[in-house]
C-alpha cells in the first residue's frame, strides 16, 4: 500500500506515530488562539487542580478502582445551554440521581466549532428561560467559569462532546477539571459528521489523546473513552469492537494508558455479555500485539442507543433492563437514558429517575455472570471470528500503521458502519435482528467477512423472515430500526383474540 499524501493540517505526516512534543506545543498554541477563552488554559495550574481533587473525583482512578472491585458504575448524559442550568442539572444528577460519574454534554454548535452560534444560543436560552441549546457551550464559558461545575459536585466529571472537532473543547474541559473525555477519531467522524474526512477526524483525536498523555506527564491520569456505540442504530458487536480496537491503538500511540471502550447495548442478554467480554479481550489482544502492554481498557455499556418507544412504561423496561445487561455483562459502568428518550432531552428529574432505576437493576443483578453458558461461549467465538480477519486486513492495508490502514479500509468498505451520515464511509453494511433477537448482518457490504460467518448470520435472519412471513430483503433492516420503538400492540399482541 502506498502512503497517503501528506495533508497540510498541522503540517505533520499522517500516521499512528506519537506527535513530537515540540510540534505539539506549536499545535496547541495555534489551537488555543482560536477563541478568547483558550487563553485561560494553563496546563500546570490545571494539573495542580486535578491533583488537589480527592481520588474519588478523578475518573482515571475511579474507573480502575471500580474495575478492581467488580462494580458497575452509573453515568447519565446531560447538558443545558447556560452555566446556571448546567449546575442545577449536575447537582441533581449527583444527588437525586446518585450518579457515580457526572456528565457534561456539549451542545451541537460547540461540537461543530460554531462558537458564535453557541453564543447566540446562550443569549436565547437566557431570554427564553429554558435551554435552547442541546448541551453546555463549554468553550464559550471557558475553563475558569466551568470549574464551578466541578466544584458543585462530589463525583468525577466527564465531557461528552459527540464531535470530530474536540481540540478546543478538550483543552477547556481538562483545564476546568474534567477527568474524563468521551470521543475518538474513527467512531465519531464516521457517525457524527458528513463531510469531514476520517483522516482529519483521527488527527483531531490524536491531538486530544496527545494532550491527555501530556497530563500524565504532569502526574494526572485522565480517563479517555471511545464511543463504540457509533450511530447507535443496530450496531453488531463486531463492528463496534473493530472501532474500539482501532481507536484504542490510535490512543495508545499517543501515550494514553486509561482508555475506556463503550458499547451500545444490543438488548440481548447473551449477545451483550459476549460483546462486553470480547471488546476487552480483543482490544487487549491487538494492543499487546502492537506492543502496548499497559493500557487499561474497561468497558462501558450504554442503554439502548436506537429508537425508543413513545410509551414511558415501555421505556422503563428498557432503562431497567439496561442496568441488568450492563451488570450481568460485567461492564465497569453503564451510561443511562430515561423514559423521555423518544421525546427529547430529559428533565433533570426524569434523568435522575432513569439513573436510580438503572442503579436498582444493577443491585438486583448481584454477581450473576453467564460465562459458563454454552450459548454465551458460542457468541464470543463468533465475535472473535468476525473481528480478527477484518482487523488483520486493516493493519495490513496500512502496512502495520493503523491510522493509514483505517483510511484505506474505510475507503474500501473493509471497515464499514451502518447508517453512517459520513461521505467517507460506504455504509453498505446492513444489520437486522434475527429470529432470537440477536443483531446480525443481513448484508456485510464490502467487509471481508468469513463466508461461514455470513452463512450463519443469513441463516438466523432468514429464520426470522420465514417466521414473520416477510421477504428476505432490506426491509428487514428498516423494520429492525423501528422494532424496539414499536408499541406493544405490535410487539406482543394478545395472541388469540379474534380479529
Amino acid at each position: 500500500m502506498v502512503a497517503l499524501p501528506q495533508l497540510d493540517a498541522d503540517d505533520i505526516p499522517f500516521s499512528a506515530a506519537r506527535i513530537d512534543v515540540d510540534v505539539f506545543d506549536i499545535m496547541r498554541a495555534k489551537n488555543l488562539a482560536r477563541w478568547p477563552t483558550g487563553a485561560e488554559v494553563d496546563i500546570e495550574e490545571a494539573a495542580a487542580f486535578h491533583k488537589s481533587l480527592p481520588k474519588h473525583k478523578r475518573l482515571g482512578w475511579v474507573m480502575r478502582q471500580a474495575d478492581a472491585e467488580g462494580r458497575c458504575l452509573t453515568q447519565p448524559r446531560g447538558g443545558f445551554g447556560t452555566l446556571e442550568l448546567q449546575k442545577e442539572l449536575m447537582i441533581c444528577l449527583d444527588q437525586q440521581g446518585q450518579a457515580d460519574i457526572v456528565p457534561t454534554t456539549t451542545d451541537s454548535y460547540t461540537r461543530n466549532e460554531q462558537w458564535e452560534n453557541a453564543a447566540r444560543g446562550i443569549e436565547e436560552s437566557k431570554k427564553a428561560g429554558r435551554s435552547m441549546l442541546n448541551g453546555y457551550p463549554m468553550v464559550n464559558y471557558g475553563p475558569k467559569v466551568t470549574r464551578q461545575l466541578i466544584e458543585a459536585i462530589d463525583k468525577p466529571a466527564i465531557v461528552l462532546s459527540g464531535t470530530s472537532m474536540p481540540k478546543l473543547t478538550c483543552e477547556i474541559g481538562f483545564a476546568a477539571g474534567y477527568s474524563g473525555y468521551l470521543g475518538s477519531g474513527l467512531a465519531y467522524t464516521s457517525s457524527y459528521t458528513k463531510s469531514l474526512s476520517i483522516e482529519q477526524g483521527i488527527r483531531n483525536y490524536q491531538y486530544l489523546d496527545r494532550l491527555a498523555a501530556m497530563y500524565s506527564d504532569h502526574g494526572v491520569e485522565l480517563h479517555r473513552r471511545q464511543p463504540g456505540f457509533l450511530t447507535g442504530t443496530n450496531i453488531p458487536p463486531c463492528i463496534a469492537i473493530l472501532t474500539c480496537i482501532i481507536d484504542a491503538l490510535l490512543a495508545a500511540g499517543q501515550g494514553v494508558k486509561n482508555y475506556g471502550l463503550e458499547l451500545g447495548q444490543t438488548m440481548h442478554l447473551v449477545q451483550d455479555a459476549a460483546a462486553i467480554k470480547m471488546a476487552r479481550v480483543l482490544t487487549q489482544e491487538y494492543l499487546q500485539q502492537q506492543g502496548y502492554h499497559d493500557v487499561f481498557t474497561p468497558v462501558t455499556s450504554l442503554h439502548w442507543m436506537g429508537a425508543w418507544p413513545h410509551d414511558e412504561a415501555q421505556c422503563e423496561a428498557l432503562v431497567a433492563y439496561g442496568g441488568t445487561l450492563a451488570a450481568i455483562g460485567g461492564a465497569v459502568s453503564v451510561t443511562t437514558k430515561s423514559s423521555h428518550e423518544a421525546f427529547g432531552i430529559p428533565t433533570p428529574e426524569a434523568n435522575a429517575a432513569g439513573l436510580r432505576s438503572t442503579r436498582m437493576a444493577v443491585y438486583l443483578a448481584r454477581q450473576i455472570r453467564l460465562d459458563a453458558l454454552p450459548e454465551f461461549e458460542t457468541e464470543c467465538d463468533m465475535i472473535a471470528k468476525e473481528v480478527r480477519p477484518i482487523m488483520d486486513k486493516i493493519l495490513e492495508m496500512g502496512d502495520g500503521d493503523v491510522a493509514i490502514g483505517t483510511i484505506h479500509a474505510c475507503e474500501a468498505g473493509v471497515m464499514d458502519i451502518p447508517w453512517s451520515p459520513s461521505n467517507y464511509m460506504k455504509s453498505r453494511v446492513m444489520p437486522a435482528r434475527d429470529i432470537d433477537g440477536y443483531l446480525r448482518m443481513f448484508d456485510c457490504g464490502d467487509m471481508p467477512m468469513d463466508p461461514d460467518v455470513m452463512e450463519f448470520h443469513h441463516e438466523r435472519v432468514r429464520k426470522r423472515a420465514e417466521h414473520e412471513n416477510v421477504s428476505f430483503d432490506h426491509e428487514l433492516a428498516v423494520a429492525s430500526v423501528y422494532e424496539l420503538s414499536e408499541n406493544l400492540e405490535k410487539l406482543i399482541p394478545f395472541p388469540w383474540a379474534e380479529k
Partner: protein
Amino acid sequence: MTALTKQQRASITLVTGVIGADTHIVGNRILSMALEKEGFNIVTLGALTPAEDFIKAAIETAADAILVSSLYGQGELDCRGFRDMCIEAGLDDIVLYVGGNLVVGKQAWEEVETRFTDMGFDRAFPPGTRTPDVVEKLDTDFQSKVSGTA
C-alpha cells in the same frame, strides 16, 4: 381524498435533508427511501445541511416541497427565518414540512406545532411519525396540483 398514483407522484419533487449541525440521518434516510419507493421524485441532501443548501437545491431542481428534518433539539434555532429565506429566493409557494424532535426536551406537541407553523411551515410532524402518515399528507396537499395538471 384519494391517494395519488405513483405516476402522479412522479411529477412531484421533494427535497429532503437534516438541517443545521444535526447528524441524525437514520429517520431522514428511511423517510427518503420510503417516499422514493412510493413514487415521489426525491432529492436527498443528507445530514448536517445548512438552510441555504435546502433552498439552493430546491431552486436547482424546481422542487415542489422541502422536507426538513431536525432531531437534535436545536431545530427551533436553525429553522428561524426559513420561510423568509424561501420567499427571498423566489420560492413563495413552496410547500414546507418539518419533522422530528423539533425542540429541546419533552414539550406539549400542540405548542411546538404552533411555534413551527407560525414560522411559516405548512405542516410540522411530531416525534415518532411513520412514513405512511407523511405520504398521506403529501397526497392531500398535492391533490389540486396534480388534478390541475391532469
